[in-house]
């Protein structure tokens, strides 16, 4: 009865209308367009005072790096952040939407958001889209019940872990965590370990690269260290700059003004009122 002033997209799950057409085109040999993925290494770990999240900053479209310094650590609530791997548009849209829902929930309850609330909202959404929303997330935060770290898979399953990695570089990063993680890490040790894990992903996985972003969340405080480490600076820049010779020489300049070609003749009756 009361319409929203802003038109929202129609409710309901995935619209399967074009699937038949896509199948037909694929049979005829047409390859679909590629989309921007965050190849990615994303990690999270729980340390003595809270949670540390880390991510690389390369976004790829097939074999091309389309963004050398993108942001993969998304804001969910003042005390909750989420790293996203998979299709960039999906991770951004889904974290944005849940962040909005958490804000409304905070207004209605008057309380700080809990990590488990963000987790449940995300997994409900992802499950209802049956894996078509290609977002693999590492969700971490500190609330009144303590520090929490979860991973969420595109089909909607979740894990609760003391340390976690996702993305194409997850094996390289997990190797670092498995050998060096211990409980009760200090803040500096934790950041050091996260940086090592992300760097291992950056250097050993083609889908990850560029810089390291880190986010440290503790009770009542958060630090978003954007570009905490830049292990891939652009070297070999020619200091003298580049100059290109002129391609074509101007031999002669002649300007001809165009005369009026259209003559206006007034005939006929004026338009009837």
């Amino acid at each position, binding site marked *: *009865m*009361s319409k*929203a*002033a802003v038109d929202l997209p129609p409710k309901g799950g995935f619209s399967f209308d074009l699937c038949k057409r896509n199948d037909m085109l694929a049979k005829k040999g047409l390859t679909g367009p590629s989309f921007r993925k965050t190849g990615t290494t994303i990690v999270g770990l729980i340390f003595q005072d809270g949670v540390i999240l880390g991510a690389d900053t390369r976004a790829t479209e097939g074999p091309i790096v389309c963004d050398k310094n993108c942001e993969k650590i998304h804001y969910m609530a003042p005390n909750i952040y989420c790293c996203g791997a998979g299709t960039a548009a999906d991770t951004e849209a889904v974290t*944005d939407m849940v962040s*909005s829902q958490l804000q409304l929930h905070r207004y*209605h309850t008057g309380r700080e958001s809990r990590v488990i609330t963000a987790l449940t909202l995300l997994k409900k959404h992802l499950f209802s889209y049956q894996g078509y929303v290609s977002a693999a997330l590492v969700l971490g935060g500190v609330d009144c019940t303590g520090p929490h770290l979860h991973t969420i898979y595109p089909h909607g399953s979740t894990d609760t872990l003391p340390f976690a990695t996702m993305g194409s570089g997850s094996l390289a990063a997990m190797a670092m965590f498995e050998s060096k993680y211990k409980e009760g890490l200090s803040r500096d040790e934790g950041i050091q370990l996260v940086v090592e894990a992300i760097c291992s992903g950056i250097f050993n996985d083609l889908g990850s690269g560029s810089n390291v972003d880190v986010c440290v969340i503790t009770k009542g405080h958060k630090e978003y260290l954007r570009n905490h480490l830049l292990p891939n600076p652009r070297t070999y820049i020619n200091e003298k700059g580049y100059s290109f010779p002129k391609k074509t020489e101007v031999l002669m300049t002649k300007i001809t003004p165009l005369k009026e070609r259209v003559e206006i003749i007034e005939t006929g009756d004026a338009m009837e009122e």
Partner: protein
Amino acid sequence: MGDSQYSFSLTTFSPSGKLVQIEHALTAVGSGQTSLGIKASNGVVIATEKKLPSILVDESSVQKIQCLTPNIGVVYSGMGPDFRVLVRKSRKQAEQYHRLYKEPIPVTQLVRETAAVMQEFTQSGGVRPFGVSLLVAGYDDNGPQLYQVDPSGSYFSWKASAMGKNVSNAKTFLEKRYTDDMELDDAVHTAILTLKEGFEGQISGKNIEIGIIGSDKKFRVLTPAEIDDYLAEVE
């Protein structure tokens, strides 16, 4: 009165050109507890009486002044439950605007959308108008702003306004006391004095509520202790 024949249906005009249900809604507002708002040069203050039906009610659980966004707050006179519904809708609209445009909603936009909701309920079948008038206080790029929204859906921007039981006395008092270059602290003192005018009983931090927003663009409700400090200054 010939009008009484037309007072049953909201969607029917009376011969005198009025919608009688809206008049009745305004009467409901007029019998609600006094609330007021004052726009200062560097902020806005809104305040209301918080008279509870019995001393047994836990007054810390009642909050009449609510925030809609971090930089917009609202207070009402009239029916509390109607206010809760409007606050919920307004918060959602502000959040939808933010999702779409990635900027915090300007005060005028939010007021317009809330007023549109209130107007819908005066022109639909099977519903009644909201029995509240709202005072919306906000601080955005256009500076401090104060709007009053009525059950009919009409809204006006005010320098200072009052609603509820003691409205005529309060407005006269405000007209005398208001100056354009008032600062936020002076505005809070003036608000307290205006509430004191028609207050039955002993005024204290527990039976009034004050919300302020300054140039930091953060709306907040004052604690009873802070209100008591201001009251002491006023004495």
